[in-house]
């Protein structure tokens, strides 16, 4: 664990080990992505929320880091950094997740997933195989961001991992289920986006009128379940 200054009232905690991964053309500093690390991030969120209360303005958990924004009129760097270090010393290394398993229905089809056919062709798979590989996996919710309700899920089976589109779409429909490298996600609202679309999920991923606002949170797991066109429409899906 490493705690680094991010800004005037922000610290970022990095979990696990950092290593440099070299790909063909570029160097990426990468922290390890694993359910164990994600679990540590989630434990840290709980511990800091419970113990620091009002000192915390906001927390941003992600794959292997946690951004802590604190109230500099109630504390300061030299007080809160050792406090955080001490609180997180006891974090358990176990991979036992405290999250819940959430099932999300998806209507996979060429009609609802404009990139499904090309993705299958490029990977030398049938459409049915792509769907099966996507829905058989249990995914971890690693991060929520980009837009309200956008949950980054990992990791997608290598056989269907596909880089983002070279040119992002101007408009991805709400509920669009996409793949970007080894990540997958459901677009919570209409937005521009470059992920490869393979289906549509009728369930709202972000609804300000509902409690909870989102069906998933960081630390939960997700499994997709293939549904047919009729079920999709009966669940409120729109084509």
């Amino acid at each position: 664990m490493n705690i680094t200054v991010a800004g005037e009232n922000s610290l970022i905690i990095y979990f696990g080990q950092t290593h440099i991964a070299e790909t063909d053309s570029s160097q990426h500093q990468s922290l390890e992505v694993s359910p164990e690390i994600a679990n540590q991030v989630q434990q840290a969120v709980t511990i800091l929320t419970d113990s620091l209360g009002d000192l915390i303005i906001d927390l941003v958990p992600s794959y292997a880091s946690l951004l802590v924004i604190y109230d500099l009129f109630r504390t300061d760097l030299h007080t809160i950094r050792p406090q955080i270090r001490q609180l997180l010393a006891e974090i358990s290394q176990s991979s036992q997740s405290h999250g819940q398993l959430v099932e999300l229905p998806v209507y996979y089809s060429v009609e609802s997933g404009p990139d499904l056919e090309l993705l299958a062709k490029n990977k030398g798979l049938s459409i049915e195989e792509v769907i099966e590989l996507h829905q058989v996996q249990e995914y971890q919710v690693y991060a929520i961001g980009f837009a309200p309700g956008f949950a980054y899920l990992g990791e997608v089976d290598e056989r269907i991992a596909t880089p983002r589109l070279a040119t992002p779409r101007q408009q991805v429909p709400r509920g669009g289920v996409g793949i970007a490298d080894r990540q997958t996600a459901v677009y919570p609202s209409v937005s521009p986006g470059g992920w490869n679309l393979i289906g549509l999920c009728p369930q709202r991923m972000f609804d300000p009128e509902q409690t909870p606002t989102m069906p998933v949170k960081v630390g939960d797991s997700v499994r997709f379940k293939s549904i047919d066109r009729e079920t999709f429409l009966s669940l409120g899906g729109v084509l």
Partner: protein
Amino acid sequence: MATPEHLTSGFVVKQPGPRTLLQDLGRYGYHHLGMTTGGPADPLAFSWANRLCKNERNTTALEVSIGGLVMECTVETKIAVCGANVPLTINGRTRALWRSHKVNPGDVVELSFATEGVIAYLAVAGGFQVAESFGSTATVVREGIGGLNGGKLESEDFLPCGGDGTSTSSDDDNSQCLMLSKGYRPVYGHHAMLRVIPGYQQHDFSRYQQRRFFSNEYTISAQSDRMGYRLEGPVIKADIDGILSEGICLGAIQVPPDGQPIILMNDRQTIGGYPKIGSVLSLDLGQLAQLKPGDKVYFEPITVDDAHNILHLADSYFKKIEPTLC
């Protein structure tokens, strides 16, 4: 609490201007849902507009970019405009900025286009009465959250507010207006020195690259908005192209592979995967928000301790300055 007066008293928007947004100090505690903070791009001008209306700091006011706002008043109250120099008229008569003014039903309040700076705030006594979403009225257009319906003001929008109670109050002070003396008002120019707290992936930028960043001038690009200010200038290269996506704080300076820094503002995305060299002091982001495309910025590194001292002093200074009765 909603008396009939509350339902009908307020301001009718006649011309919304290119981008006028209802804002309070911002939405906090919802980053875990992917929601950004929003809030005033120039918090100091925002705070003064509210203070001159005797409001609490976190009271809902209008953020008017460039100007072009016309509203008709249906209530007896006070307003104040602070920030960019947008000529203010009430019923066609020129009125001073940085002071409160009485307005009456039927009055037409007009802000024409900014001659200095970009953003002005119009506050009203008691604030605009808008329902909060996720604990705040701050409008974030990208998310469709806050304000009246998640967007910028439109013609014929109605902005409810209570009266300032002049006629019923026994408080004599209430008939008087408040002004901030000239010496205390910020000055908006065409360049700004931005203080930076180095952090995040700072060490993934070589000493040479850091020196290059802190010793050069950058130009504000036309592609700048409430999400981020894009800069053009000497290319800065990190030793790495990308990082595993992580939380982004206000003012973070991210450097994409093209080497042109982006300063992330109030409506920033909550997580991102570009390396960051550090974060701009929040106090200086207000100055940045008042600059136009083509204006220049420079960077100066400061320590977190310096940042804390500066922010505590600024807060104490704001509280100690007494506006003049007029």
